[in-house]
C-alpha cells in the first residue's frame, strides 16, 4: 500500500494567540504543533503499512517551520517527505492547497491519500474532499476504521449521534481520518536518528504556481468574538468559590 498523508502545522492548542495589526490573521510568533487529526491519519497510514507492506509518504504545505511536522513523521516511521515550502502557502484557500498538493504528486502512484478530517486552526474540513475531486478519485470522510478487501477497502464512516456506516470504496481513494481511530505512537530514538537520512523533497511555490488559481474566498476580518453571554466570574479561594458556586446553584440555576 502506497499511502500519502497530508499533514498541517497549526498553532499549539494552548498557545496564547494575538491578532496581527491589520486584523486579518494571527501573529505568527507562537509555538506550533502537528494538527491533531493529521497525527491520527499518519498513525493509521503507518499501521496499514505494517499490516500490508508498502510506503508512507508525508506532505505539508507551509513555511520553513512546517518542516518539523515532516521530521516528526519520518521519525515515527514515514519513508519520505515532501515539503511545499514557502510563506505563500499559508494564505491559500483549501481549493488552492489541494491543487498545490495534486501538482506536487502528479508523477506518483498512490493507492491512498489520507488527511485529518479537519484542521484545528481553520476547521473547514474540505481539503481532502477537494483533493479527491481534483484527482478524480472516490473518497470517504470521518473514517474510524480501514480494512483491505479484494475490491479495494472497506471503511467505517462515523456519523452523528453514535451512528456508523461501512462503505466499500475502490482504490485509489482519499480518506479523511477521524481522531481516536487509533492510539498515537511516540517516535523512538532510533527513529529520530533514521529520520535524518530519509528523503525530504522541497517543492517551491514557483513549481506549482501554474496549477493554482485565485483564492475564491477571503478572510476580511479576524477578531475576538463579541460576547453574547454575560459571564459572571467567581473569584476567591477554592473554599470561597465553592460557596459562591453553591449559592448560584441554589438561587439562580435552581438545581439544589
Amino acid at each position, binding site marked *: 500500500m502506497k499511502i500519502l498523508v497530508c499533514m498541517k502545522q497549526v*498553532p499549539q*492548542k*494552548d498557545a*496564547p*494567540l494575538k491578532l496581527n495589526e491589520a486584523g486579518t490573521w*494571527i501573529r505568527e510568533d507562537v509555538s506550533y504543533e502537528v494538527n491533531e487529526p493529521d497525527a491520527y491519519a499518519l498513525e493509521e497510514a503507518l499501521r496499514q503499512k505494517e499490516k500490508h507492506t508498502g510506503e508512507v509518504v508525508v506532505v505539508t504545505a507551509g513555511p520553513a517551520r512546517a518542516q518539523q511536522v515532516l521530521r516528526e513523521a519520518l521519525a515515527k516511521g514515514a519513508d519520505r517527505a515532501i515539503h511545499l515550502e514557502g510563506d505563500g502557502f499559508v494564505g491559500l*484557500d483549501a481549493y488552492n492547497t489541494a491543487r498545490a498538493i495534486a501538482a506536487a504528486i502528479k508523477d506518483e502512484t498512490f493507492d491512498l491519500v489520507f488527511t485529518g478530517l479537519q484542521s484545528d*486552526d481553520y*476547521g*473547514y*474540513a474540505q*481539503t481532502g*474532499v*477537494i483533493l479527491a*475531486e*481534483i484527482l478524480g478519485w472516490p*473518497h*470517504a*470522510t470521518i473514517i474510524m476504521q480501514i480494512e483491505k478487501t479484494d475490491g479495494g477497502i472497506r471503511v467505517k464512516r*462515523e*456519523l*452523528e*449521534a*453514535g*451512528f456508523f*456506516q*461501512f*462503505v*466499500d*470504496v*475502490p482504490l485509489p481513494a482519499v480518506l479523511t481520518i*477521524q*481522531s*481516536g481511530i487509533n492510539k498515537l505512537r511516540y517516535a523512538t530514538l532510533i527513529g529520530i536518528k533514521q529520520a535524518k537520512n530519509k528523503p525530504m523533497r522541497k517543492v517551491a511555490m514557483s513549481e506549482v504556481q501554474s496549477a493554482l488559481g*485565485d*483564492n*475564491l*474566498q*477571503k478572510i*476580511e*476580518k*479576524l*477578531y*475576538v*468574538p463579541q460576547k453574547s*453571554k454575560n*459571564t*459572571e*466570574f*467567581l473569584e476567591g479561594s*477554592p473554599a470561597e*468559590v*465553592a460557596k459562591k*458556586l*453553591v449559592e448560584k*446553584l441554589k438561587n*439562580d*440555576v435552581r*438545581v*439544589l
Partner: protein
Amino acid sequence: MADTILVVVEQREGKLNRVSWETIAAGQAIAADMGWTLEAAVVGSGVSAIAGEVAAKKLAKVYAVESSKLEPYTPDAFAAALKQFIEKHPARVVLMPHTYQVRDFVPKLATALASTAISDVVGYKHDGSKLLFTRQMFQGKFVADVSFTGTGPGFVTFQNGAFRADKVEGGASVAPVETVNVEVPDGLVRNKPQEIFKEAKQAVDLTQAEIIVSVGRGIKEQKNIDLAKQLADALGGELAASRPICDNGWLPMDRQIGSSGQTVAPKLYLALGISGAIQHIVGMKGAKSIIAINKDSEAPIFEIADYAVVGNLFDIVPPLIEEVKKAKG
C-alpha cells in the same frame, strides 16, 4: 434573472433532518435583508412528500431533485445531481446545514462547479450588497468574517444551532413544488454504502439528564475522573466528557458530548477542564446554565459560560462537593 438563495435541505432515509429548518430560517433572514428570492431543494429518491413539507414555509419554490441513484446517499451521486441542478437553476448562494453528510459532498460539489464553500458558519452580515459569513477559527478563540471573491455560486454550511428552527416563517400559501429528474450515469457512483447502524447499546441517554458534569483534557488522568463522578453523584447528575477523553477509552463513547457524540440541553452543564473546542460546544451550547472551571483564562468555554471559575479544578471540586452535600442536607 432574480438573485436566488437556494437552501438544500437534508433528508435521511426518507425523513427530513430537522436541522434543515435552521438553514431555512437562515435563508429567510438573508432573503429579507438582501431582497433576494428564496428557494429550496430536497435531493433523493421519492422525496416529493418532503418537498411538500418544506413548501408550507415562506419561500418562492421547492424542487424535488430526483433519481433512483440518489438512494442510498453517496457523494458521487449527490454532487453530480446538484451540479446538474444548479447549472440549470443558478443561485447566488447555496445554503446547507453543516452535517456529516454535507461535509462529505459539498467540497466536491463546489469544486466541480469551480467554486468554493464557507463551512461551519455561525452568522452573517451584509455590507451593502456584499455578504459576509462569520465563522469561528482557532478552536473558537477568534471569529472571521469571510467573503466570496469569485463569481460562482457561493456555498455556505451553517453550524448546528446558529439559527433557530422555531424562527422559520410559514408561507401565506403553499409554494409551488417542481420535480426535477437528474441523470446519474451508470458507473458514476463508486462507493458502495452498507446499512447505517448504532455501535453498542447505549447505556445512558444523556439527552434526558437535567444535570451533567462533563470532563475534558484538564482532568489529566483517568483516575481523576472519579472526582468528577463524585460531583455528579452529589448533584444527582450524569457524567459526560469531551471527545479526547472517550478516544482515550477513559469513558465509554456513549458519554461523549459534541458533534460526533450527543447533543444535550440540560438545566445545568458543568464543564471541568474543558477548553471549549467548537466540536464540543455544538453539543452543549443549548444548556440552560453553563458553569465552567478551567485554569486557562483564555479558554473559549468562557465565551458561553454563565458562571466561570478560572482556577485549578483539583483545588475547587473537592470543596464544591462538600458544599453541595451540605446544601442538600
